[in-house]
């Protein structure tokens, strides 16, 4: 199977818009979790998040178009533009039938939806924007990106809770490897900092309620962990076959070489405590990449900061890597800006690629007292380390396990 290259990176995150600003903040371990200011969230049990306040500053999208879309589509458009620019691709010169879009998200465009539903009940049918039908649903960003660039190739939106975007990237790689398309915009976006979406996240019961200390609230694998913090944003990459990327002289950031996914099939919300299906997903991904587990030199952790999730994740890693798990640097840098739910896997993968590029592992924040032994956690500050082959783990509610293998690109 031909290797699939990552040739462009587009990031829209609380820690920064554009890969340079994002990486500068992530590697420094600066936290961007704070009290929600977009609306009065003070009555919610958890009212802290990684929020993006200045999206418009980075956007060239007309007001006429903006009023038709939710923030998650807007984020996807900005991230797509950044990724295409980074890849040096002029989309007008591409065959539109051979370009695809594979994006993941978990909840859809609720800021738009809840505003219009409010108007429905207050003003009646005529109070609802006709764009409601096309703005809120999970595939809306795929549609907006497709229309904006005139992209017409095979495309997909994946909805698989927090594993959505890593799954989308997995499918994108598979599609490219069958020579069905020339390139794909792959990743995910999520905009959960809205009254209704925040309510749903709260009732799920997995959020940290340490509102008094926003920057210390998200503490994956720490003894005092009490849940995760939500964040909003998008991570989209340009993927293309190695041969094409090399032929056009593209900068190859890294390769996506393996992918594995399994389901726990145990519970509607919680994972299987044993982590055995995550073990299988890791093994499938390694086998798919034809990479020996001894070659993995970095693990990007999912790190939900809930006991069952953290324990099963560590248990699975130890089961696969044995004693060597104590040596492989592992980190969960999203503790600095929040869990972007369906977009979290894409952001984790981008951080992994940037870590490879800079020979620097970004730190896990707030992991002061590891509760679970047996891993080489990178915490507090970044660690110099050469990464050639990495594992990215992303998991969704009910036990959806997704794992990618990423390999360093040649310079």
């Amino acid at each position, binding site marked *: 199977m031909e290797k699939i290259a990552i040739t462009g990176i587009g990031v829209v995150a609380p820690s920064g818009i554009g890969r340079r600003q994002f990486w500068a903040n992530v590697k420094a371990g600066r936290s961007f979790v704070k009290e929600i200011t977009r609306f009065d969230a003070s009555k919610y049990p958890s009212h802290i998040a990684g929020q993006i306040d200045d999206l418009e500053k980075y956007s060239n999208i*007309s*007001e*006429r178009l903006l*009023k*038709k879309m939710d923030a998650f589509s807007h984020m996807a458009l900005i991230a797509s533009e950044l990724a295409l620019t980074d890849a040096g691709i002029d989309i007008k010169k591409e065959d539109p039938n051979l370009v695809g879009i594979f994006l993941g998200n978990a909840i859809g465009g609720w800021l738009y939806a809840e505003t219009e539903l409010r108007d429905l009940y207050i003003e009646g049918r*005529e109070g609802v*924007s*006709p*764009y409601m039908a096309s703005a809120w649903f999970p595939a809306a960003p795929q549609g907006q990106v497709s229309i904006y660039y005139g992209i017409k190739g095979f495309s997909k939106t994946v909805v698989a809770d927090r594993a959505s975007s890593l799954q989308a990237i997995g499918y994108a790689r598979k599609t490219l490897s069958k020579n069905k398309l020339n390139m794909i915009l792959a990743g995910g976006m999520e905009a959960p900092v809205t009254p209704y979406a925040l309510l749903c996240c709260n009732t799920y019961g997995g959020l940290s309620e340490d509102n008094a200390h926003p920057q210390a609230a998200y503490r994956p694998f720490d003894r005092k962990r009490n849940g995760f913090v939500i964040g909003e944003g998008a991570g989209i990459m340009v993927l293309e076959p190695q041969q094409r990327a090399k032929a056009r002289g593209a900068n190859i950031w890294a390769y996506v070489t393996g992918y594995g996914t399994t389901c726990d099939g145990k519970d509607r919300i919680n994972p299987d405590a044993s982590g055995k299906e995550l073990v299988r997903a890791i093994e499938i991904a390694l086998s798919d990449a034809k990479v020996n587990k001894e070659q993995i030199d970095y693990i990007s952790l999912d790190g939900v900061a809930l006991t069952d999730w953290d324990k099963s994740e560590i248990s699975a890693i130890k089961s696969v890597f044995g004693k060597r798990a104590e040596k492989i640097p592992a980190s969960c840098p999203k503790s600095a800006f929040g869990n972007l739910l369906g977009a979290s896997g894409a952001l984790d993968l981008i951080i992994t690629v940037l870590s490879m590029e800079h020979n620097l592992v970004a730190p896990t924040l707030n992991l002061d007292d590891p509760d679970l032994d047996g891993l080489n956690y990178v915490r507090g500050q970044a660690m110099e380390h050469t990464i050639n082959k990495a594992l990215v783990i992303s998991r969704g509610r009910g036990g959806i396990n997704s794992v990618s293998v990423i390999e360093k690109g040649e310079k």
Partner: protein
Amino acid sequence: MADTKTKIKGVFVELLKIKPEELKDDLNLSDSIGVDSTEMVEAVIALGKAFSINLNAKDITKFMTINDIEKVISSKISVK
């Protein structure tokens, strides 16, 4: 009549966030400024409110010009 046309144009300028000079009286809305069917749904509702008349999606389409729309609205106003 001129007031009716000015008011119609004002509705489109506000809805589409465009400059008034982008609207041409004798070119159809779809070809000239790319109005789509969803934008027309919004326009029909807004024009109905602006002129206090009952309009539906069949009365006004994206293939009409501002002049065509003025005729439709004027006829509706005259039978009020």
